[in-house]
């Protein structure tokens, strides 16, 4: 009888992990969606600031779904899927609200003159700057936002 070595557990290439959850499209869901993605990012070994960036991007995207795609609370669900594979987190957010041309959203005014500053328009900017890749698709069934974040040194 031979003794096999224990199955190798590599921290850089663990088994792919995925989780999906649907949330009611209301602002009170935001903290729960935040918990959901934060836990996954934490357990996948992302660094503190990367975890914060991910939570922020998801929060901004979900706020936009409620405010702009559904134009109000309790008009539909937000479906959130996370896939972690080879140190890459892919987050997919799906809604059944109004279509939207993501790529034509304007860049916000970041002037350091207070009077020139608009209070609105920062959400998409955070998503674009803090995520590594962002894709948006509108179809008859609704909108799909895909955000990808790669682990650094991971």
């Amino acid at each position: 009888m031979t003794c096999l070595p224990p199955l190798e557990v590599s921290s850089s290439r663990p088994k792919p992990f995925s989780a999906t959850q649907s949330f009611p499209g209301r602002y009170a869901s935001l903290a729960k969606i935040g918990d959901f993605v934060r836990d996954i990012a934490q357990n996948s070994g992302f660094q503190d600031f990367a975890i914060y960036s991910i939570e922020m991007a998801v929060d901004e995207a979900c706020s936009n779904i409620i405010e702009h795609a559904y134009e109000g609370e309790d008009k539909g669900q937000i479906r959130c899927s996370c896939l972690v594979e080879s140190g890459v987190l892919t987050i997919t957010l799906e809604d059944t609200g109004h279509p939207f041309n993501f790529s034509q959203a304007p860049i916000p005014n970041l002037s350091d003159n207070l009077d020139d500053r608009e209070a609105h328009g920062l959400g998409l900017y955070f998503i674009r700057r803090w995520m590594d890749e962002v894709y948006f698709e509108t179809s008859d069934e609704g909108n799909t936002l895909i955000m990808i974040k790669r682990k650094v040194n991971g």
Partner: protein
Amino acid sequence: MEISITPYKHSDLVTAKGRVDSYTAPQLSESFNGITDAGRYKIAFDMSGLDFLSSAGLRVLINTQKTCKRYNRGELVLVNIPENIYAALDLAGFIPLFKIFDDVLTAVGSL
């Protein structure tokens, strides 16, 4: 989110703990508006207890700063900004728009 307000002779200290997102930002906004509606425009905002601040929170800060600074009446200053939230303020270009302090005493003493 939990909010507390401490009035001083020349200024008010607002302390918030927890998560500021689109759900809780209206509460924060009401707290600031309560102060400015009372004719008080010098506000120190202690952010040390904040875990998360979305762009909805940033909106509240910029709107409050505009109200406070109108006619040179006063200003909103930020205190004890957690690192991650500082990065968000920085990316949003907020750093030049607010005086930032490391401790509440210096902030309140400056107002």
